[in-house]
């Protein structure tokens, strides 16, 4: 989690994925949304910012070939995975428009195959990336056995988890929730997860500590948005 400045507005740090690292630096890539990211975008070279991390779990290591599905800024947590497993992934990468297809060149060098879509058709196929993937599955049914690694907005994940269940695919997804502590202490960042042992069939798990990566099939999406 990152925070620029030391004042009390905004109060909380914001969660970000590590895009990359080398011996000296950690690399982040983020989208300006609200106060947290606006202030982060204003820092100058030499400014001191606060970092709490690394937090939570990571992607389970892929065995052989794998599929990656990214929506917009959701590419970030997947870049290191692609880098660590070069030429093993089939990447499906969608965004609103061409400008929001970040790291496209870098990503395409790391993968075996790449499929691109945008909502407005400004690059790649017009449409949602989950639909492109669905079409791909029809003609490549052998790929149904490959593990999927996925990150995108909650609505995208929600839509995608339906597909995953229908085709009984194996998919890990990085999930988002608003966070406060980042270390599992406040129980603020929970998602609903299937729990057979429970009388109601579910329990809440923290995204910051138990996640952010979950088996997508286990997440229950009936929560309020």
């Amino acid at each position, binding site marked *: 989690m990152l925070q620029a400045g030391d004042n009390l507005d905004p109060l909380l740090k914001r969660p970000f994925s590590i895009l990359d690292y080398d011996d000296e630096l950690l690399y982040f890539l983020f989208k300006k949304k609200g106060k947290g990211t606006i202030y982060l975008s204003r820092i100058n070279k030499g400014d001191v910012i606060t970092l709490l991390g690394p937090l939570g779990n990571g992607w389970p290591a892929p065995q052989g070939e794998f599929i990656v599905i990214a929506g917009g800024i959701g590419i970030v947590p997947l870049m290191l995975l692609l880098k660590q497993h070069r030429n093993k992934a089939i990447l499906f990468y969608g965004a609103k428009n061409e400008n929001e297809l970040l790291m496209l060149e870098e990503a395409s060098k790391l993968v075996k195959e790449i499929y691109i879509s945008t909502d407005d058709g400004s690059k790649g196929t017009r449409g949602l990336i989950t639909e492109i993937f669905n079409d791909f599955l029809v003609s490549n049914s052998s790929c149904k056995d490959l593990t999927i690694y996925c990150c995108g907005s909650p609505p995208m994940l929600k839509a995608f988890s339906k597909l995953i269940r229908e085709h009984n695919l194996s998919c890990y997804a990085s999930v988002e929730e608003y966070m*406060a*502590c980042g*270390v599992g202490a406040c*129980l603020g960042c*929970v998602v609903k997860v299937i729990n057979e042992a429970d009388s109601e069939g579910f329990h809440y798990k923290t995204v910051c500590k138990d996640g952010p990566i979950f088996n997508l099939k286990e997440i229950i999406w009936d929560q309020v948005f």
Partner: protein
Amino acid sequence: MGSGFLDVIKPNLSIQIATLKLKNPVMTASGTFGYGEEYSEFFDVSRLGAIVVKGLSMKPKKGNPPPRIVETPAGLINSIGLQNIGIDHFLNEKLPLLLKFKTPIIVNFFGDTVDEFIKTAEILSTHKGIAALEMNVSCPNKEAGWRIFGTDPKILKEVVSRVRSATNLPLIVKLSPNVGDIASMAKIAQDGGADAVSLVNTFLAMAVDVKTRRPLLANIVGGLSGPAIKPIAVRMVWEVCKAVNIPVIGMGGIVTYKDALEFLIVGSKAIAVGTANFLNPFATIEILEGIEKYMVEEGITDINQLIGSLVIDYERTYNN
């Protein structure tokens, strides 16, 4: 005394709350420090005056659906919904780990009914190692149409006095600030046999997403904590300190040692740090060190000289 650092005599920070001796007045606020483990990765939590654990109930509670938190200007609204692992799991799995820390463990608990409060207190009291109980009366009462225990004088009196009879442990009553006259609620707790009161719990609050026109919390309302509430909390703690003669544990928006000093100066014997743990995992320790440094600089050798040392040397008038 010389002027070199070596000559500085370490001030005495230890305080006493009923029979409970604390090496310093810095505690954690319930629900913001998990069960201690989460923050023990960052520093030696044994240095704290006490650890107050997340509120427990007889049976595990799932809590509210997400979204559970929303940030507001200098504040945080939460509606965790009292999610907890239940006392059995706590006593068997978490308490043994907590007891490894060399600091008193205070158990925060609550119930849906007066009977549940009593039973929970009884079970917790049979277990070795728990230093004190803090009862959270800012929770809804099933028998009174889900009204909050701590906002109804009659119910507060009943639940406190009956829990008092059910435990020999030092009993802290954690007051709700969502009342008109917090001092009178503190007196009720005192009369009911509380050994101490702690305040403030969170302020009932709400935030709306103007795009969707929906509440930002699935639970609609939640409790406001953090720096935003500090000035109200300090005023309430000051009022309570004047009204009761049992120790008061002050909290609400403490982020720095200066914030903590405000609460001590108006009269609270100990302070608890909540939301600030989320801003900075080292908050409690930095506050502790800050208080110590301040005492050295100000030549205060014993924290009890600081507690309640507010100077008022002009006529007091209430206005506006």
